[in-house]
């Protein structure tokens, strides 16, 4: 909740005026039964025609004033609510941008997206309705009771009774059904999951002839959903009859005791009409209040989820260093280990190696052996939990973020492009790159031909690059990294979607760069790393071998095994 306070402060005037004007409108609503009572008691009873006409105009005037104050209130409420949501969205994105990989892994991307969209919308809705109704509904309920006291002190006691009873009925049913609604939702989620399973597994289900069994399983879950729906439905269905009985019991009591008072000359018939009207108003507002509370509870929960993100602090901080001094090795790992947050075992342990400028380094190993983790440490997506990483002779933590970004450029495993044009995507690498430079990078990445076919640098890239094939996306992300002029380029299994021929051409092209740049190539194929100056072989998070293709074939079992699994020629089975 504390994150909302700055916005209430920013929209202080709106946040105060909106409920105030709503209360004003409520005052007009509350006055209507009293005016009607006076028409009956003064106008009709005493035969005063002018009085009746003047009250009519008073009623119309009050409706108009009510309309105006309502408009004002709605405007202020909308303004404050939407302003708050807009601000929150901005804050949230800024926060997410400050997160390192660890935070994003922990929270999850899809969660972050729902927080930014669905949750903030609910907060906006909640603030809006809160400002509009949280004063009005209680004000009418209690106002009606107070005015009843003004009309007649004894009969007003009936009002105290019905407010209490209605309150118990409305909120009691809400309280009882809330967990049941949750069960219904869970059952519905299970039906959805079962549906998805049946659709995605259609081939396997049919291949194994399991249609009947799957159908039965679905009908079971669907039946459970039905009975939970009927259960909550039968309780919710009590609300209307219950409140109806309570209100009419009040009407009966008012009529009976009112009749006595009139007989004694202590009350007029118009007063009775007014009191009966108030019972109706109370019921309407209590029902509104109940649905408002559900809505507010949901948006408070949403606000809590948004707040959780805003309260998360990034675990990564950057240094100030921008100038480089002389160095021997461009990169060195000294007994580096990394254990992911919450993981039981380290993903990398005790890794040490040195890389000189201009070298090509291959990294190979099975899935889960820690290849990607290792290169993520080089681009400092994570920090090592033990040991030290030196970049250009200084601890990697000392470099400023922008210097680090300029020095290391990564081509991630999953090609990620942004909607825009080919050019706007390539400029990610270097905001100031010339068109010529972009073309050069495209050529090196074997992407020039298909880009030209699609319309050149200005060709459109749709969201996530979905108008491109997997291989095309990979080649564009490689080009993007090449544009950056970084000293270190990391290719994280970036050619998996390329066919053999394109992959080979790409490798040839990259080789021509190798004298200027230090290139890391992560791959599962020995053929992709065979030509590297140095190959790191990872096995289960440890460094199983380091050397050239030939020396590793000789001296590293893991490497030989991988190689042989791909070139079966030598395998004896």
């Amino acid at each position, binding site marked *: 909740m504390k994150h909302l306070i700055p916005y209430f402060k920013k929209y202080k005037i709106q946040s105060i005026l909106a409920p105030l004007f709503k209360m004003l409108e409520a005052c007009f609503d509350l006055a209507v039964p009293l005016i009607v009572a006076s028409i009956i008691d003064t106008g009709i009873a005493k035969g005063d025609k002018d009085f009746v006409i003047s009250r*009519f105009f008073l*009623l119309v005037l009050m409706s108009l004033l009510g309309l105006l104050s309502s408009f004002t209130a709605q405007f202020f409420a909308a303004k404050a609510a939407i302003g708050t949501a807009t601000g929150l969205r901005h804050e949230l994105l800024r926060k997410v941008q400050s997160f390192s990989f660890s935070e994003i892994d922990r929270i999850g991307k899809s969660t972050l997206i729902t927080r930014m969209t669905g949750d903030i919308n609910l907060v906006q809705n909640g603030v809006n309705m809160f400002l509009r109704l949280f004063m009005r509904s209680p004000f009418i309920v209690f106002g009606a009771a107070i005015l009843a006291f003004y009309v007649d002190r004894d009969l007003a006691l009936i009002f105290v009774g019905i407010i209490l009873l209605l309150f118990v009925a409305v909120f009691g049913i809400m309280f009882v059904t809330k967990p049941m609604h949750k069960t219904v939702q869970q059952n519905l989620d299970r039906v959805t999951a079962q549906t998805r399973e049946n*659709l995605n597994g*259609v081939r396997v289900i049919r291949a*194994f002839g399991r249609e009947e069994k799957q159908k039965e399983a679905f009908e079971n879950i669907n039946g459970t959903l039905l009975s939970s729906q009927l259960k909550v439905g039968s309780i919710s269905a009590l609300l209307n009859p219950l409140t109806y009985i309570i209100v009419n019991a009040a009407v009966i009591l008012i009529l009976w005791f009112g*009749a006595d008072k*009139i007989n004694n000359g202590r009350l007029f018939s118009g007063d009775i009409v007014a009191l009966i009207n108030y019972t109706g108003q109370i019921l309407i507002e209590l029902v509104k209040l109940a649905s408002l509370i559900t809505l507010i509870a949901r948006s408070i929960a949403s606000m809590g989820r948004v707040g959780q993100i805003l309260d998360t602090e990034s675990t990564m901080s950057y240094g100030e260093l921008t100038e480089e001094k002389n160095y021997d090795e461009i990169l060195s790992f000294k007994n580096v280990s990394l254990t992911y947050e919450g993981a039981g075992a380290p993903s990398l342990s005790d890794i040490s190696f040195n890389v000189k400028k201009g070298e090509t380094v291959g990294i190979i190993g099975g899935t889960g052996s820690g290849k990607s983790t290792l290169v993520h440490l080089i681009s400092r997506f994570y920090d090592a939990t033990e040991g030290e990483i030196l970049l250009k002779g200084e601890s990697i933590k000392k470099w400023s973020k922008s210097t680090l970004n300029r020095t290391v450029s990564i081509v991630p495993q999953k090609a990620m492009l942004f909607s825009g044009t080919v050019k706007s995507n390539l400029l990610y690498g270097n905001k100031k790159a010339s068109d010529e430079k972009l073309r050069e990078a495209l050529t090196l990445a074997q992407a020039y031909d298909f880009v030209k076919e699609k319309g050149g640098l200005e060709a459109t890239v749709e969201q996530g690059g979905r108008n491109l094939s997997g291989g095309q996306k990979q080649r564009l992300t490689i080009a993007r990294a090449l544009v950056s002029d970084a000293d270190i380029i990391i290719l994280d299994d970036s050619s998996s979607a390329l066919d053999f021929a394109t992959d080979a051409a790409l490798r040839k092209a990259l080789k021509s760069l190798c004298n200027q740049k230090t290139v890391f190539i992560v791959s599962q194929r020995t053929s992709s790393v065979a030509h590297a100056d140095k190959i790191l072989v990872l096995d289960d998070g440890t460094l199983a071998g380091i050397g050239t293709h030939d020396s590793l074939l000789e001296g590293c079992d893991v490497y030989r095994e991988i190689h042989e699994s791909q070139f079966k020629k030598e395998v004896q089975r």
Partner: protein
Amino acid sequence: MKDKATAKKVLHLIKPYKLPVVASILCSLISVCAQLIIPYFSGNAIDFMLEAGKVSFEDILRIIGIIALVTGLAAVSQHLSAVCNNKVTYCVCRDLRNRISEKFHTLPVSYLDSHPSGDLISRMISDVDTFADGLLMGFTQLFSGVLTIVATLILMLSLNGFVALTVILLTPLSIFVAKFITSKTHRFFTEQAKIKGEQTALINELIEGQNIVSAFGFEDEALGSFDEINQRLEHTSLFATFFSSLTNPSTRLVNNIVYAAVALISSLFALLGTGITIGQVSIFLSYAGQYAKPFNEISGVITELQNALTCAKRVFDLLEEADRRPDPENPVNPEIKGSVELKDVAFSYSPEKKLITDLSLKVEPGKRIAIAGPTGCGKTTLINLLMNFYDVNSGEIIVDGENIQNMTRHNLRSRYAMVLQDTWLSGGTVKENIIYGKPEASEEEIISAAKAAHAHSFIKRLPQGYDTKITDDNLSVGQRQLICIARAMLCLPPMLILDEATSSIDTRTEMKIQDAFAKMMKGRTSFIVAHRLSTIRESDIILVMNDGKVIEQGNHEELMEKNGFYARLYNSQFEE
């Protein structure tokens, strides 16, 4: 017209619940009438207590008795009608969902392939919900709304025609006001939805690509383009929210003015002593309030009904989709040998794009056929045809001497074991998944199948061993694949369809899988979608595919000699 047809189908759905539907209509009839009559009686009661000393307590007691009785009646019928409505709504939902679920098993695979599962799921879940809620609830609301209007009209007319006319003529004004505002705000809502869509797309992109944004130091630019959309959204949302929130106060204004007019006119009548009592003034006032309510609701109900019909149509469209070709009436059941023959087979997914033409192939029992080609060349097409997920356009596929269209699909498919790259497992435990094709398997059989698939050792290490529930993320892709293999191992028919793993599995797990595959293939006719050249090289027949077509056919030596597409593909592996 279309709506009429849909409505007819809806009636058919409701048919089994005739009794609760009739009960619901009856109960809501009773409750509406009862609710309307109460203000009438309380107005009457007031007429018996006009002046001090002249109150008629017997009459009041009598009326109070009636009110109590009617209240009870109204409450009970209200509850009953709600319960009946729930019953009908939820049961119709269940029936529809069961029918859709059943439909999923009889639709041709081609339909499921060409319709995104997200769309089908939304028909199953949200369309059914909107339909049932909207249609049945909307219908009852409409019914009781119209009933309220008619009954109020009759009651008011019976009291005083002139006052009644005032109410009748003025109240519908609120509908026009509401319509007017809705039509004016529609533009803002369309605009808002558009900007929201844009913003969500950007949020998706920025969060999915956060590591890239950060690695290239593009945070400020990203935030800038986000803010631009965010500001536009703020602007439009303000208008949309504000203007749409004017509807309620505006209709309330109209209702209040009607209320005031009724107060004025009925009081003037009472004043002149022309047949309106004070009690009747109060009756009119409460009717004036009640009469407006159904009017204000009805326009909403009509939109809801239209929505419901649209959703119903989407659901019915799915249910009426043509089923796959039925199984033959007198199916043959040839002896299981494991021979396959394709005779002049032609096939394409759409008539515009010819894929397979004149494909002939004869496979003796026990041979191995590799299907090779670059990614996306349509290797799965052949699996679709062999398993009869799709029917051939012309020509025939003969298994064990019989055209597969003369067998039941179940019979045909039981002759194959299939392991696909897409490692689909059902939601149950590891064990339930392994026995998927052979539910009666013994414990030993299960374990030996798992051992043969190299899955036993990791399954043992799972928290609950073979009884561990499989979730989306407690197994790696490789482990899932091994379970799929164990599943196929358990019921080993004479023919195999295997889809080799690509890069998502590390090479050592892949070796285990290869080894398991090799065990399975021994002595069995196998079709293998091959990615690894070593597998391809050792096959008896290689089908080389490109762009969905089979372009070359032969064994490794023959194809290398031919020096065509296959030879180029093979050689590129060794290029430096």
